[in-house]
């Protein structure tokens, strides 16, 4: 298990050397971008809980019936339900996995973990963060002071408690996490992949550096000139990015900071349906909202214009005085 998780430095360097990191346009369709995600890959998912979830990419990956994905995210919400429920993933690395605090336990997660043998691999929130940070820094581990003494640590032989060679203190070394591909949704980026992120960044900056490939979806594509007027606002550099897809409402029904809040009517209905029957309820949800629509805009139409507008009004209100 350890070997599968920790990529040797030589392979990380080879992967990076082989990537085209030049300043070049990399705009493509959602279909093409999702095609970069291959069966069996380690997929790092940006955002957290119901915020800036790269939902359009997850939607398209599920439509393309990918298999055996090992997914990681700091905190998992309905994205995790959908990844398990659709069969594209059988392994999720995270610190918290339900639909959202508002709804209690996820019956979908419970079904797949308790009876279907799918793996929810639990680390502390900081544990996930330090693993991605190590991955982004190009070191095999980082030391931390949490998880020690708990059963969360006891379940994770991948992490190594040590006595500090400087102070003798007990520390936990957590191994780097370098996903094969990262899926990240941002408010805006240019055609080269220079991305600005407003508000909560979560672990997206470390994730973008750690991954061997990065797919960005963005609410809108802006000019490179606009980016370069405020280079200190660039949060992800073009040289980390392999694909850019413009997808308005690309995190729906979750939130995108400053643009829309979560679409809670849709979420409520979703939770009711899948928790009532995690198999059939989920299958029907996927048929209607994922497999059925011809394209992403048709999916948004199913959520409904009224809910989109109302979520947008709430989203923009963060900037109201």
């Amino acid at each position: 298990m350890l070997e599968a998780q920790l990529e040797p430095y030589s392979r990380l360097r080879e992967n990076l050397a082989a990537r085209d990191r030049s300043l070049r346009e990399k705009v493509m369709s959602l279909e093409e971008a999702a095609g970069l995600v291959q069966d069996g890959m380690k997929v790092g998912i940006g955002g957290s809980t119901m915020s800036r979830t790269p939902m359009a990419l997850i939607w398209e990956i599920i439509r393309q019936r990918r298999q055996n994905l090992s997914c990681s995210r700091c905190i998992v919400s309905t994205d995790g339900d959908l990844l398990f429920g659709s069969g594209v993933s059988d392994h999720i690395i995270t610190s918290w996995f339900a639909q959202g605090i508002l709804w209690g336990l996820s019956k979908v997660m419970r079904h797949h973990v308790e009876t279907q043998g799918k793996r929810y691999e639990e680390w502390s929130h900081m544990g996930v963060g330090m693993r991605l940070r190590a991955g982004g820094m190009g070191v095999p581990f980082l030391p931390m002071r949490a998880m020690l003494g708990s059963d969360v640590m006891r379940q994770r032989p991948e992490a190594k408690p040590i006595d500090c060679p400087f102070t003798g203190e007990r520390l936990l070394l957590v191994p780097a996490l370098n996903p094969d591909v990262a899926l990240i949704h941002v408010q805006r980026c240019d055609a080269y992949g220079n991305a600005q992120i407003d508000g909560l960044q979560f672990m997206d900056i470390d994730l973008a550096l750690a991954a061997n490939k990065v797919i960005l979806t963005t609410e809108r594509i802006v000019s490179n000139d606009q980016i370069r007027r405020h280079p200190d606002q660039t949060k992800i550099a073009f040289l980390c990015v392999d694909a850019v897809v413009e997808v308005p409402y690309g995190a729906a029904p979750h939130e995108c900071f400053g643009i829309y809040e979560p679409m809670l009517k849709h979420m409520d209905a979703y939770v009711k349906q899948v928790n009532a029957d995690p198999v059939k309820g989920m299958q029907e949800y996927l048929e209607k909202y994922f497999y059925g629509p011809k394209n992403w805009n048709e999916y948004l139409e199913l959520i409904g214009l009224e809910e989109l507008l109302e979520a947008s009004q709430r989203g923009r209100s963060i900037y109201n005085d």
Partner: protein
Amino acid sequence: MTEASNYTASEILAILASRQLKDGQVVFAGVGTPLLAATLAQQLRCPGLTILFEGGVVGAFVEAGKLPPSTNDQRCTKRANMVLGSADVLLLLQRGYVDIGFMGGAQIDQFGNLNSSFIGDPAAPKTRLPGTGGGNDISSLTNMIVAMKHEKRRFVEKVDFITSPGFIRGGNSRRESGLPAGGMFRVITELAIFGFDETTRRMRVLALNPGVSREEVQDNTGFKLEFDANLHVTEPPTTRELQILRQLDPERLFTA
């Protein structure tokens, strides 16, 4: 202060929890009752209370009637002093910037260990719970206040799984596990307020909520409780506390 007479269990929980906070403290608050209680304290008594959220928020001022559905939503950031990465806000705990971690709990034991991962045998669980989130980090790195529902199945002798460490096996076992800082400070329920013995690190009752008897607390607890020598009865919620609490959560998201 006028005493209020009509309140729900969730309401007294939030109000008593909020009273544990002091002005000037730095508090890392979870969603739900902790967020509500910290905001109540901030509005009522502690204008200089600094609230941190796991999503990456420092110095939050949550608006009445706009409670965030999680601590990772944009509502947490409105008029906050700082927004940063979520690993970085957790590192503030590790560095020592935080006085109090403030969380809810699903299952707790006599040493204040919390379980939010598994009911039953973790290898073949009866129920897979949502997991730690930042709970493990917070409880490993600072002093904890936990606000939770008081039920026998939640107050157990030994948790099925230590998700967020309290005093582990009591005595010095927390420190010996590599956690030299922090530890369980208070547990607040709708029945009583609990502290922990300085030596044994076992949970003990410090105060009973108004109208609650020793027997009622013991009957709802799955292990033998000690009662503090200075056991007293908590002041009931005031109308002012209740009024502000209800303004904060008019839709009763977390106080139903």
